[in-house]
Structures are given as C-alpha cells and as structure tokens.
C-alpha cells in the first residue's frame, strides 16, 4: 500500500512537470530542454529556504516560483532569439548551466552532497508527515495545475499559442505579438515546474543535483510525446505509463542496476518507435 502511495506521489509530481512542459512543447511548439532547470530551482529554493531560513513550505514554494519566474524571464529572453533545433540546443545549455551551478556553488547548494533534512510541509499544527497525507497535498497541487493548464488551453491565449506554433507570421499579421505570448507561457510553465520541484524536495526530504540533469528533461519529453502533444489528458496518461513502467520491470526479477537501465532502454525505444508510428502521441493533437 505504501508502495502505491509512493507511486501516486511521484505521479502527481511528474504529472505537474509533464502538463507544464506540454504547454511549451505541445501548445506553443517550443521544444524546451530547460524545464529541468526550473524544476531544480524550485526544489533548491524550497529546500534552502526551509532549512537555512526556517521558512514554512508555502512561502518557500512561492519564493521558488518567484525565483523561477525571474530566471524564466532571463532564459526566455535569451531563448526567444532561437528557432527550431537551435532552440532545443540552447535550452539544453540552460539546463546544463543550472545543473553546473547546483553542483559547483558549494557554499550555498552544498554541491554534489545535496541538502539533507528538508522538513515536511505544515499547515498550522498539521504536518504532512505521513506519505498518505502528503499524497493529498501533492495531488491537490496536481489538480490545481491541470485545471490552470486546461483553462489556458481553452482560452483565446491557448488559441494564439497554437497559431504561433504553426505560423508566427500569420499570428503577427493578425495583430498578435508572438514574443509576448511566448514569454508569458514560458514564465507560467517555469513557475509550475518550480512547484513540482518544491514538492519533490519536501517529499524526499533530501535533494541533490543529480535529479535535475538534462536526462530528466528527456524523460519528461518522452512522457508528453508518448501521451500526446497539446493535450493535457495525454500528458497525464504519458506520466502514468512511464512512471508505472519501471515498476513493472521491477517484477521481471532483474537486479536493480539492470532494471534501471532496462527502464532507460524502454523509454528510449518508445521515443524512437513513437516517432514512426504516431508522432503526435496517444491523444496528441499536434505533430512536431
């Protein structure tokens, strides 16, 4: 049972990441590999503020979101200069730089050792110590963020994002300014990723930089491509499958190390095969 709760918490956190990344990749056509950076910023902001400044979880999370938003403004401006594949490479560079900072700015981030003893969140006197209670919190955030994403997708704003994705010139001729739209969705998406990061930090009560590597971002990309681009339910289904999959492999009886690698083989193959069979994913409405 505890095992299922663990999985559900992971599902909630990755669900948030996938839905927010889908806003960029699926709806706006920005294949961003910078998402892991904001995930990391959120996690470290929460962990540091809670351990070093004894801040509560919610204010710490809000600070993390603010910090992510600022970082997203800078990174987004830099990335806005690029198109297509250059965008992918440049955004990967951003994740690598942030990872490098988390690893090497030891005075603050404690480097590769990471940060221990991050407390669980509390509301008043109630502390989310049990995983079951924490699941409630994480799931509540997932619901909030999916709702927000759904609203964005169904608003005029979402329609413009799709137009920008396909033909920026046409969007311009009809009076829209693509840069503004791209910046706004980039910041929103970064703030959502930051929430997932904060939740992750207090869930494990420990974080180190290895979680926020580029490969994590590739995993997220696999999730949303599998589930379907430009569809929020798709992102959730993709999360469900790719979070559940390694657990299935666990039952095959391979040693843990091999199972971990098998898991990578499977999601790598999934990316390759999907691009042949169904480039828009299971529920997707958009092909990259």
């Amino acid at each position, binding site marked *: 049972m505890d095992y299922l709760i663990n999985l559900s918490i992971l599902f909630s956190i990755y669900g948030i990441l996938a839905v927010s990344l889908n806003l960029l990749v699926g709806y706006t056509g920005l294949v961003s590999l910078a998402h892991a950076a904001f995930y990391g910023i959120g996690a470290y902001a929460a962990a540091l503020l809670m351990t070093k400044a004894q801040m509560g979880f919610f204010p710490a999370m809000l600070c993390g979101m603010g910090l992510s938003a600022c970082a997203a403004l800078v990174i987004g401006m830099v990335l806005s200069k690029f198109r297509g594949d250059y965008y992918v490479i440049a955004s990967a560079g951003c994740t690598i730089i942030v990872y490098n900072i988390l690893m090497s700015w030891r005075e603050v981030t404690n480097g590769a050792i990471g940060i221990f003893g991050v407390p669980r969140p509390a509301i008043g006197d109630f502390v989310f110590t049990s995983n079951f209670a924490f699941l409630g919190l994480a799931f509540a955030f997932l619901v909030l963020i999916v709702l927000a994403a759904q*609203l*964005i997708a*169904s*608003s*005029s*704003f979402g*329609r*413009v994002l*799709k*137009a920008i*994705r*396909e*033909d920026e*010139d*046409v*969007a*311009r*001729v*009809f*009076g*829209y*300014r693509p840069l*503004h*739209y791209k910046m*706004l969705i980039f910041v929103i998406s970064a703030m959502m990723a930051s929430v997932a990061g904060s939740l992750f930090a207090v869930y494990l009560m420990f974080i180190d930089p290895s979680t926020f590597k580029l490969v994590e971002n590739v995993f997220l990309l696999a999730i949303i491509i599998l589930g379907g681009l*430009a569809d929020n339910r798709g992102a959730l289904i993709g999360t469900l499958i790719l979070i559940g999959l390694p657990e299935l492999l666990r039952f095959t009886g391979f040693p843990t190390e091999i199972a971990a690698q098998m898991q990578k083989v499977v999601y790598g193959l999934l990316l390759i095969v999907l691009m042949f069979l169904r480039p828009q994913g299971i529920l997707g*409405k*958009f*092909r990259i």
Partner: protein
Amino acid sequence: MTALATERLCKNFLGVQALRELSIEFKEGQCTGLIGPNGSGKSTLLNVASGLVPISEGAIVLSKHRLNCLKPHQILKYGMSRTFQDGRLIGQISVLDNLLLAMAERKPFRALFQFRKNDDLARAEEMLRRVNLWDKKDVLANGLSYGQRKLLEITRAMATGAETYLLDEPFSGLFPEAIEIIAGLSEDMKKKGKTIVLIEHSMDLITRLCDRVIVMDAGKLLAQGTPQEVLHNADVLEAYLGK
C-alpha cells in the same frame, strides 16, 4: 483620399531588386487591381506593405502615417488586413478557431481570461455561413479542400473588420461557384466603403471588380488607369504577353 501609398519604395533580396523606386497609391474606398507578370514584384509589395519583409529604401504611407519601418502586428492598428496567396491557415486548429483568431483579444494577459463564451460567435456563424463553411466549423483547417481553404482565408481577413484589404490571388485555381462567392464578398466590401488591393490574373474579374488597375513589371510601375485604358495599353500587352 489615399488609403495606402508607397514612396520611392525599394526592396532588395540578396542583390536582386524586387521593387525599384516604386511610387504608387491606392485610393480609399476603391478596388484597385494589381497585375503584372510572374516575378514583377506584386507579392513582394504586399509583403512589404504588411511588414513581413523590411523596407530597403523609401517609405509606406498608411492612413496618413509615413513609415520607414513597419511591424506586421501594427498593420491591423492602421486598419489593414491581408490574405496569402498560398492560403496560410493554421492547419492544426479548427475552422472556427481560425476565424476567431482574427476577432479575439490581442493582449496576452487579457487573452488568458477570454474564453469561448466571450467570443462573438454570432458574427462568426454569420460569416462562415456566407461561405458555406459553418458545417465545417469544427474540422481542422488542414482537412479543408483547396477551394474551402481559399474561402476561409478571405473570410478570416474580413473578420478583422479592417478598412483596407490586401488580397493576394484570392481567385486562383477556384471553380466558378467559389469565384462567385468571393467576388460577391468583394463587392459587398466595396459597398461598405472598404479599400481593396487585388492581385489577380484574370482580366474578366479585374474588369468586373476594379475601379483602377496598376500594372507592375520588374519591380516598377508600368501603367495605371481604368481597366479599359490599361487593357489597351501597348506597353502592358508587351510585358504581359512578351510579344
């Protein structure tokens, strides 16, 4: 009154002069035909006038504003809209969404809080019915036939409610029924006092719809006047027919 004019407009692409000191004007409330052989610079003129390609030299005059530098998102503010020759619809969204794109909120923060219920669906329905596309409103634009795409393209431009319309070969490759619909729309626009710039090859349609014709050749103005005058101009015949 002048709706749109160019002053000694030049446009160079990598050493090729697409427009050479072109000075022409399009009068308010008139339909002006823009004709000329392939590669004479008609589409380039439209692209420059809608800000999609920057001006090399000279200026554009748009509702009395003289501009050397024009951004595409500004043209609507000056009351101008356009269509594309190749029908650039947003393929992976619905027909209705394509149309609403021309009618919805432009500011990103406000657009975030504008939903379907705020859209002017009544007007959208009226416009789509006019071109027999209401049944197709939920179809992705990619699923339309060539003719339907052309119809939606011009309807979308009209939905902006602009005063001046740049129409890049709206009739090309269409069947007579579709041609009739678009010709009808153009006539309606003229009745409402809108300005139209029409690129078209068929002289029949030009004579029927246009008050004036401007003939371009090799990026320059070759001749202008009423359709009748232009049709009998020896220079035009030579440029067009190469005779």
